[in-house]
């Protein structure tokens, strides 16, 4: 282990590659990352994009094909070094919580601690709202409570880095929203450095300082929530942050630069205005308009065949103009997908 710069990032990843089929496909492909102490990073991407493998590599649960990982300046994984997971001081909340079924809540939480003071434990139990549940077994707890035990267990040994791998994927929406707030508050309160894996960009927007978008093992874009929303570099990234409607160059003859075969145009659904007086509009055929409680859910067909759903106060019929502002159009080079 070589201790380099003290002010260096807590986590540094260099040219990390991992393949599960001897190099045919790379699940993690030349990934470069660094994370400052106290920051929260979100890894976002569709399933199969390599998020989970990346954090498992960081935790030492997988060995990479090449590349290196440094934690607090120490090399933990490289071509010649491998520090086993038990020596990495990382806390991890697993997707399925991985609570030990034969151990009580108390035994689960203190599992990773050499000796834990009573006060510290009480503090922790209070933090996650589990006072009085110490003697129960995991199967006697609700999904949300299990989630909190998993978090408390990961935090108890005071890890230098906390990894949360899709922690909400097993919860229903209402519980998820509540827990998301709670967990965010706890992490902020403790000032802990964290990596948060999710396929839901809303989670990422809410929790993370820095969002990393992965696709097929590669980092496609990295930045804060606003920059990723306003300035996505690909249709893939744009689509992660809300519905986007791809537009055909032919439909959009009013774009002055028509040498645009190499480019893809799209617009966010929420930027469309119905029957607006704007210069830019698309003629759309209304396929159906169904009463949906407070409003109508409309399905309209754009000239290029794309079906678009949006709501309106009144029932719509025939054809409408969907207008938008020039600035609302997202333009991508085709190579960016």
């Amino acid at each position, binding site marked *: 282990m070589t201790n380099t710069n003290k002010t260096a990032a807590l986590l540094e990843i260099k040219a990390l590659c991992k393949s599960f089929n001897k*190099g045919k496909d790379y699940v993690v492909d030349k990934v470069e990352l660094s994370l400052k102490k106290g920051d929260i990073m979100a890894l976002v991407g569709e399933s199969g994009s390599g998020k989970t493998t990346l954090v498992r590599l960081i935790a030492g649960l997988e060995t990479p094909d090449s590349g290196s990982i440094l934690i607090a300046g120490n090399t933990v994984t490289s*071509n010649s070094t*491998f520090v086993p*997971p038990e020596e990495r001081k990382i806390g991890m909340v697993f997707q399925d919580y991985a609570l030990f079924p034969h151990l009580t809540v108390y035994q689960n939480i203190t599992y*990773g601690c050499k000796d834990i003071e009573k006060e510290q434990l009480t503090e922790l139990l209070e933090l996650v709202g589990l006072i009085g549940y110490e003697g129960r077994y995991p199967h006697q707890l609700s999904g949300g409570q299990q989630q909190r035990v998993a978090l408390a267990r990961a935090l108890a*040994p005071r890890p230098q880095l906390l990894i949360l791998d899709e922690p909400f994927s097993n919860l229903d929406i209402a519980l998820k929203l509540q827990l998301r707030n709670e967990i965010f508050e706890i992490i902020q309160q403790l000032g802990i450095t964290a990596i948060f894996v999710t396929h839901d960009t809303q989670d990422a927007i809410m929790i993370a300082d820095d969002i990393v978008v992965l696709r097929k093992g590669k980092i496609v874009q990295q930045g804060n929530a606003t920059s990723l929303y306003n300035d996505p570099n690909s249709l893939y990234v744009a689509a992660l942050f809300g519905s986007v409607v791809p537009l055909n160059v032919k439909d959009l003859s009013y774009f002055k630069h028509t040498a645009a075969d190499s480019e893809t145009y799209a617009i966010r659904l929420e930027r469309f205005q119905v029957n607006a007086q704007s210069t830019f509009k698309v003629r759309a055929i209304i396929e159906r308009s169904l009463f949906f409680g407070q409003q109508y859910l409309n399905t309209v067909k754009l000239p290029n065949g794309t079906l678009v759903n949006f709501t309106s106060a009144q029932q719509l019929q025939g054809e409408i103009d969907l207008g938008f502002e020039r600035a609302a159009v997202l333009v991508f080079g085709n190579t960016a997908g």
Partner: protein
Amino acid sequence: MRETKPTYLKRDFNKWSMGTLAIVVFMGLPIYTIVLRLFSGPGETWQHLVNHVLLDYVLNSVWLLTGCVILTLAMGVSSAWIVSRYRLPGQKWLEWLLILPLAFPSYITAYAYAGFFDYGGSLMLLSQTLGFDPFRMDIMNVPGLVFVLSVSLFPYVYVASRAVFVYQSGRLIEASKLLGANEIKTFFKIVLPMARPGIFAGLLLVIMEVLNDYGAAKYYGVSTFTTGIFRAWFALEEPATAIYLSALLLLIVFAFIFLERWQRGKKSYELASKSNIRLPKIAASKSLRGIFLLVVFLPILFGFLLPVLQLGYWSILTFKTVASASFVAIALKSLGIALLTAFLTVLFALMTLYFPVWNRLKFLRKCGRLAILGYAIPGAVLAIGVMVPTLQLDRWMISVGENVFDMEFGLLLNGTLSVLLYAYIIRFLAVAANPILSNQLKLKKSLSDASRVLGKGPFKTFLKIDLPLLKPSLLAAFILVFVDTMKELPLTLILKPYDFNTLAVKAYEYASDEQIMEASLPALCIVATGVVPIILLNRFILNDKHE
């Protein structure tokens, strides 16, 4: 550009990689030995054997296998389907009585039937008492052996098929019925094809046991590969010929294993839905019920009740002469060695399953599975595979002792229990590993990952997480190996220390000395030690699956 993938031997090699290698060498030694010996040519009698008896071995084995496959399939599948699908009187009893023939080693069933059908045997007496002409049948031939092996081995097919019937087909049968198929069409179009891999797995065990059998074939005077190996080894004293025969037999065994793997293919027989419902039971019509009861009862009668009655009758007759202090000593020794074997085998099974996982070298991870092949190797073959390298080691130690330390001593390993234990462990490793493995596969991988991340090393993780969660299957593994060791004959005959006897060997010796009635008491003791654990295990397996 990505560089070509280097191998990280230095980075990923750890002490568990060493452990894995050690296990693979230790467990594979007998097979390597036999394969290597093939290159040093056959013995002098090999040509004679090929010209005169080999065809016999092959034909007899083919007849035995064909007959046993058909009979065990017929008995095992039909009884399994009837008890899984229909409500019958005494249901619970029938369900586990059908497993009980497993407590009988096939050579003991063979002895019982030899006496039953023999001149002056129980059948003759019975027919006379009932006022018929004295009736007897000669069963000391291939069809007789097929019958005996089948009634003692069909539970392997029964257990495997019932497991699939009960736990897999509920929803599918409902769907099939809703689509308009009747009971018979549903069985042949849905149930049977779905259960095929399970049934084949059970059938593979039957085939292994038939090829492994020595005691029954020997007593019935049927020449098979196994009896041939014994003859070459003991009567002709030609190890090279025995090894050649062993290799041939191994080839046949591996062909069957390959066949089983191949038929499983890539099709998925697992139901997609997790909400699996158990097979609903229906009532059988009155006329059918009688037939069903008969179909279920006959295997129980032939596989368990008749042999028990025959052996019990003889035991009473011979109790005074057989039950002596030395008999009790033999019984206790048998128990002792079976317990020790069970313990050691479970230990080795755990090492075989865990060392490869803890090691980080990928190619070694797959090697662990190789070590489990032992059960496929017939006992006689394994015995020779164990004897050859251990004898070599013994000779080497003797020469080192003489030349280096100037000491003289005899064989340190051969003729001691250590070699026998070594062979038992290899032979029964798969028996122990299978229940543990299936339990291990049900444990979420994330549990041990979580423990590792929380600062516990692989061994501590095993002790604190895996071991407590594997407890039920460890018990099952222990019991299964214990019962199998009590029954084991061919391997024990070859490798046992000179003055050491087990109940199985004692029964065999009595039977070979034409004292078949005296053989019944040790035989009954083996059956008794087998019955209790089987009942326990059946309870436990069913309870486990209810959860």
